[in-house]
């Protein structure tokens, strides 16, 4: 009898496991605790192109310039032109088809919300999530002003007019189309013998030789 009971219990256990790992919508496990509105507000920092997630606040490019010079210019330059290898934030207009395109906020970015969202979560580098909502609006206005998207440095950017901002390259993106534009890679024939008559080396890495040497390798401690 005991063995039979054990078998039945084991069978029920296996069934439960199976359901939980393979079913699309099995019975919830009842784990986790309720996230309160206050807890969500403390962590919910994302902003979408349609303005969802924008906090209440306001700022002008003039106000943003002062913040930028104090908190951002050390890496990005006084005019957001970039220093050393830190990102260039302005310029590059019309360069996307060029041999050396310059992808900046003004020349490339699709949505102004991306500036707000990114600065809010990751900047200034080394002290993230330290800027006030008004600082964020002011810095976003400043960066848009440096990219000629907001012309008037006294224009007040706020949660109500934010979505009226249209980025110059807003229409420059399209969804992944490899399965149609690169269709031929799925039907390519793999030649195995006598596929070419002659082969020549056309480029060599040794000419540039930017490979780091072994001396710079970290040691295993």
């Amino acid at each position, binding site marked *: 009898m005991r063995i039979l009971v054990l078998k039945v219990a084991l069978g029920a256990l296996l069934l439960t496991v199976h359901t939980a*790992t393979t079913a*699309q919508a*099995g019975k919830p496990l*009842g784990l*986790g605790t*309720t*996230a309160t509105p206050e*807890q*969500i507000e403390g*962590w919910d920092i*994302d902003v*979408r*192109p*349609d303005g969802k997630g924008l906090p209440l606040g306001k700022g002008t490019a003039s106000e943003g310039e002062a913040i930028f010079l104090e908190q951002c210019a050390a890496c990005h330059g006084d005019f957001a032109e970039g220093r050393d*290898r830190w990102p260039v934030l302005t310029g590059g207009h019309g360069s*996307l088809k060029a041999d050396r*395109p310059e*992808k900046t906020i003004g020349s*490339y*970015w699709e949505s102004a*919300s991306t500036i707000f*969202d*990114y600065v809010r*979560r*990751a900047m200034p*580098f080394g002290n*993230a*999530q330290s800027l006030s909502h008004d600082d964020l609006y002011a810095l976003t206005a400043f960066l848009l002003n440096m990219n000629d998207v907001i012309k008037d440095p006294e224009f007040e950017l706020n949660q109500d007019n934010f979505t009226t901002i249209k980025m110059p390259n807003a229409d420059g993106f*399209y*969804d*992944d189309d*490899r399965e149609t*534009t*690169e269709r031929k*890679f*799925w039907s390519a024939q*793999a*030649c*195995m*013998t*006598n*596929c*070419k008559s002659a*082969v*020549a*080396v*056309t*480029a*060599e*890495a040794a000419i*540039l*030789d*930017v490979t*780091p040497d*072994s*001396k710079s*390798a*970290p*040691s*295993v401690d």
Partner: protein
Amino acid sequence: MSKKGAPETRSSSRRQFLKSAGLTGAVMAAGARSAWSQAANAESNPENLPPHVADWSKYPGQGVADRPYGKPSKFEAHVVRRDVEWLTATRQSSVNFTPWHELDGIITPNGLCFERHHGGAPDISPADHRLMIHGLVDKPLIFSMSDILRMPRVNRVFFLECAANSGMEWRGPQLNGCQFTHGMIHNVMYTGVPLKVVLNEVGLKPNAKWLLVEGGDAAGMNRSLPMEKALDDCLLAFKMNGEALRPEQGYPLRLVVPGWEGNIWVKWLRRIEVGDKPWLAREETSKYTDLMADGRARRFTFVMDAKSVITNPSPQAPLRFRGQNVLTGIAWSGRGAITRVDVTLDGGRNWREARIDGPVLERSVTRFYVDFDWQGEELLIQSRCHDSTGYLQPTKNELRAIRGVNSIYHNNGIQTWLVRANGETENVEIS
């Protein structure tokens, strides 16, 4: 057969070969690069070779408590992740590369998995880590790591490849070493909870179409993940290769998005917001979009196409001996399983099917070999792979013809190595 006189040491046979080829000088010049190659090829001490008996056969080695967490032999100290200092502005927002030329099989050891982070790698106490899920859900919830560990878990092997792997090579060969050209990929067995199990806890609203996945690091890394993928095969992983995730790989919790570009595998996962459209975060518009020659850019190019590379020989692992040699490499596809790998030694005139050995898994690295005889002739070696969707790895020029040279990401073109008569190997392109 094996007792046919004292075997020649590896180093003396190497010198013999170099002398006969008259190339001693050339190899001295390449000394720095040769020094990184396999420890087995290092100079031998005759006192340790037969008929002598080595010290390690006479005296006890280290005790069990000496290394409570095991480390590689000191003779493997050169097998490390390496970075390219000029590539990025700072080491906190940078990348290093996996030394594939020193590895074999399909699993990447945890300490050698390449790193890419944007605000440094935090070391987060699991007791203080929380995953919040909110937005278009019936019941917003916060999960502790204890909660996650009480959910049904699975084990899966997947590759993680950075979309920018080989991204420096679009305009031509730049870096001499598969560690640098192809080192932004690792292959790991994850233990984790299917994402759909956790989403089932909060309950999805009918209009839930996208997830914002966000890290708890100082970059707050965020990406938009389509619901279809989230409910398909994504995992919330807490173990890699059997042990806890390494801090640089997202300890205590990371997202696993099989076959998709590494950037969306958010580490230190702290929050998932459920929404009805994508967020256009910086890492899916400013970065990780593929600029085409016409000035427009593809976005949401999530899948990593089929790709392969020969890891040995390669610039960091030159050929050293005439006669029998082993060529090996790795192949992978984000769309399915690798079904075949072809290898050429003569620059694509003729190909042979490589021998695949070890597990062949979907969206995992697959290992291949060609055992061949080398008599010092110059070789132009390439590998090309086929996947289970019928995709054939293209040449770099075929990719350039469609995409131009400014797309940075998703360079899965065929790699060419030139093996010179002295065995030195170089990154080249051919006609």
